[in-house]
């Protein structure tokens, strides 16, 4: 089959493609020996997912003007605490931001 590859600037595409290939392994070995490493990444990515979604929800509502000044303040404080907690967890598990990214297909990238 004749494959057409028509491309401008292959270097740039290689750079971008390698960026997005994702830190999360395609499959996690759930055998007892390796389970910890893979699962902690999975769990933290999940927590990060929820945190980011909460943050986004809050921003959407602030942007839409549906929160009072007091509510904005409280939401801000809560989000700040969540973010700090997340930072602590990352340090404890020795994981970096890039390692917790995940491409969710039609939802796009997590971050």
């Amino acid at each position: 089959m004749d494959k057409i590859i028509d491309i401008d600037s292959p270097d740039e595409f290689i750079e971008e493609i390698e960026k997005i290939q994702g830190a999360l392994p395609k499959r996690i070995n759930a055998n007892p020996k390796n389970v910890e490493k893979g699962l902690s990444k999975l769990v933290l990515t999940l927590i990060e997912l929820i945190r980011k979604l909460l943050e986004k929800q809050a921003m959407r509502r602030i942007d839409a003007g549906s929160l009072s000044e007091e509510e904005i303040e409280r939401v801000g404080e809560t989000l700040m605490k969540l973010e700090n907690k997340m930072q602590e967890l990352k340090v404890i598990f020795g994981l970096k931001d890039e390692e917790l990214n995940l491409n969710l297909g039609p939802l796009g990238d997590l971050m």
Partner: protein
Amino acid sequence: MEYVTTKSKDVTLLEILDRVLDKGVVISGDLVISLAEIDLIYVGLKVLISSVETMERLRGAPFASPMQEPK
């Protein structure tokens, strides 16, 4: 003999990797041999290119690219 290596070849490989490693008919389950017997594949052009390079180094000669005719 002269081997023409172009970045386009790398791009083609990346395009192939994007498809064959994770897409198409993906079957998991008891009927399929568990990957415990094969090391986890971390996708990335660098990972695969380097395993070929390592072998070339050990052998002392470059492999012919399956996608290119030697000139």
